[in-house]
């Protein structure tokens, strides 16, 4: 396939003209887009389509990166602000740094890799349907309320570089679908209402292996020690966490 590269200088560029230039480049057949000097522009790739398109963001994008995105891959050389992959549908976001709160909020499909740490409420209300199963892998640690209201999808937290992957409360509060894998042990006190911790089966270990290998490849890390590590799995204690709260008139 012919690769057409377009370079955009985002210095002093507002997000709307920036997104217009990205859309125009894709419409004109670009398959690689490099955006330099990104500094806080929100909504990069918002609602963007384009299977096979790779966008490199050099700098620090603002909030809601890849929101509603359906197809492209975005590689960020820098940190990302809050909610990258918000309600994302398809595609990949690979962040060479950390990300803010509500990473993958309501994400429906595709994958997000964060090399370092994420903020509060990561993977909140992720959901899955048929072939759409969102995947989030965090290399470092996640703050409180990871996977809150989670309805589907897969969250993996690796705790690389000696980080404690989970050390705060509310993990999986109200979780009613999907699963969270954490390398090492998680204190039961960190679990939210409705979440349950359980050992990982061989099948589950085999299921996450290629995902961890892919993550490691993206960042040039050796996957072997990660795959060999102990994991714990956090999932819903009940598919209907609120069912017992109500009665009818």
């Amino acid at each position: 396939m012919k690769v057409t590269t377009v370079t955009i200088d985002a210095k002093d560029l507002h997000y709307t003209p920036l997104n217009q230039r990205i859309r125009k480049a894709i419409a004109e057949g670009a398959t690689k887009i490099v955006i330099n000097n990104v500094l806080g522009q929100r909504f990069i790739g918002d609602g963007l389509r384009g299977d096979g398109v790779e966008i490199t963001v050099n700098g620090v994008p603002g909030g809601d990166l890849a929101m509603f995105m359906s197809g492209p891959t975005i590689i960020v050389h820098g940190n990302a602000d809050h909610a990258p992959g918000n309600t994302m549908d398809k595609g990949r976001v690979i962040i060479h740094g950390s990300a803010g709160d509500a990473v993958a909020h309501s994400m429906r499909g595709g994958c997000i890799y964060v090399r370092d740490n994420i903020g509060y409420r990561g993977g909140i209300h992720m959901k899955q349907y048929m072939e759409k199963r969102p995947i989030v892998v965090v290399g470092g640690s996640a703050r409180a309320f990871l996977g809150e209201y989670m309805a589907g999808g897969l969250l993996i937290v690796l705790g690389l570089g000696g980080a404690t992957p989970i050390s705060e409360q509310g993990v999986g509060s109200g979780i009613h679908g999907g699963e969270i894998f954490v390398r090492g042990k998680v204190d039961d006190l960190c679990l939210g209402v409705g979440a349950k911790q359980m050992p990982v089966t061989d099948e589950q270990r085999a299921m996450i292996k290629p995902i961890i290998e892919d993550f490691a490849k993206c960042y040039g890390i050796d996957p072997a020690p990660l795959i060999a590590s102990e994991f714990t799995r956090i999932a819903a204690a009940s598919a209907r966490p609120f069912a017992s709260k109500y009665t009818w008139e």
Partner: protein
Amino acid sequence: MTIGSIPLRFKVEIDPELCMLCGRCVENCSYGVYRMEGDKIRVNSRNCVACHRCTAFCPRDAISIYEKPTDYRSHPVWTREIREAVFNQAKTGKIILAGMGNVLPYPMIFDRLLLDACQVTNPSIDPLREPMELRTYIGKKPIALSLKEYPNGDADLLTKLSPNLQIETPIMIGHMSYGAISLPAQQALAKAVSRIGTFMGTGEGGLHESLYPYQKNIIVQVASGRFGVDINYLERGAAIEIKIGQGAKPGIGGHLPGEKVCADVSCTRMIPEGSDAISPAPHHDIYSIEDLKQLVRSLKEATEWKKPVFVKIAAVHNAAAIAAGIARSSADAVVIDGFRGGTGAAPVVFRDHVGIPIEAAVASVDAKLRQQGIRNEVSIIASGGIRQSADVAKVICLGADAVYIGTSALVAMGCRVCGTCNRGQCAWGIATQKPELTKRLDPETNAVQVENLIHGWTLELAELMGAAGINSIESLRGNRDRLRGYMLDEGLLNVLDVKTMGA
């Protein structure tokens, strides 16, 4: 000692003189009231919800339904409803849910507002022979127009206009999701609005593909669960509405039980069949008015600034200040949902006790936006308890641009307001997903009924305006001079900015 059963809510009687044992009541009742035993129809009144499906289809008018056949000892404080709620919670220890809107007998402000008409000093207008302008545009209006004029008299418009929705009558149909109501019900509403030239909302249930032909008259909703939301959905809608809150249950989320998530509902909501659909109380990407601005702009950016974005809030005490924030968020309209708004299911304690009436909320929102000089930034859509054309006229006089109706559109399809939507057994095929019940609706016939209702209201609205000497809805909007309060207290008259009758 157990509490035992509570007295019957309804008593069903079949007059044996009139009954011809055709069995239509047995077939039609989805709650199991009737059964045929030999040459007799037996009745179990305890199952009756007074949905009147049986009486509507009894060819002999043989069925009578009586409410509350057994009296409690009357007591002004310990009403029947209060006592029955205590029984229920003593048995279950749970939160009580119910369908439909607020049932407490709060005074209706609408019924204490009177419209004006012309006599002698300015002539009334006959809508038969004079054009009446009912067309309304929903969205931002520029504060001023900038023109480039040419010597030959031509001019170019330099001001960039925001996208607006053009509606032929200021009556739209509010958001009732597929899941809360059935697909044939949504199809009927969609047909009706597309023929009239108005709009309906999807609710937070996604957009079923059978509604795609009507999408240019459909407003798609983005709520806290983000069910059914992807870029295709956003692009299909004529406008996008962010649901922050709902008049029937301000401040709390929603919860569609797994048993209502059938194959088709799971497909439009994009969740597995049979799983609970939980909408959290807040949007977890909006924790502040600044975050709201970000969500509004993210939706505009995703759809390349081609579509108006609405924000719907429940009418709560400080709705005016919240609306002022919304008006500054790049949103194009604010929807205010009053405390009489209907719902598929809500905790009774919220339905009956939280929020304020739409009349007061719209008047205060309109006043606040005018005070701050930003009324042009957003249209105001009033919803929750709009029952008739007079309510439409009155709420427009109080400052609304248009209304959403919900319950009245369902009543036009047969709903009897029995308030049992939560059970999923709706005998009219509206608030259910059971195929044997939903097939009772015929989208075409029901579309005509909904269309008739909106048409009738629109004619009445034109007559009311004509009688007041007004020939354009623009001149009715915020025109409190054409309203008078009937025995409203001074505090409320001040909030509504309406004079008392006689003044």
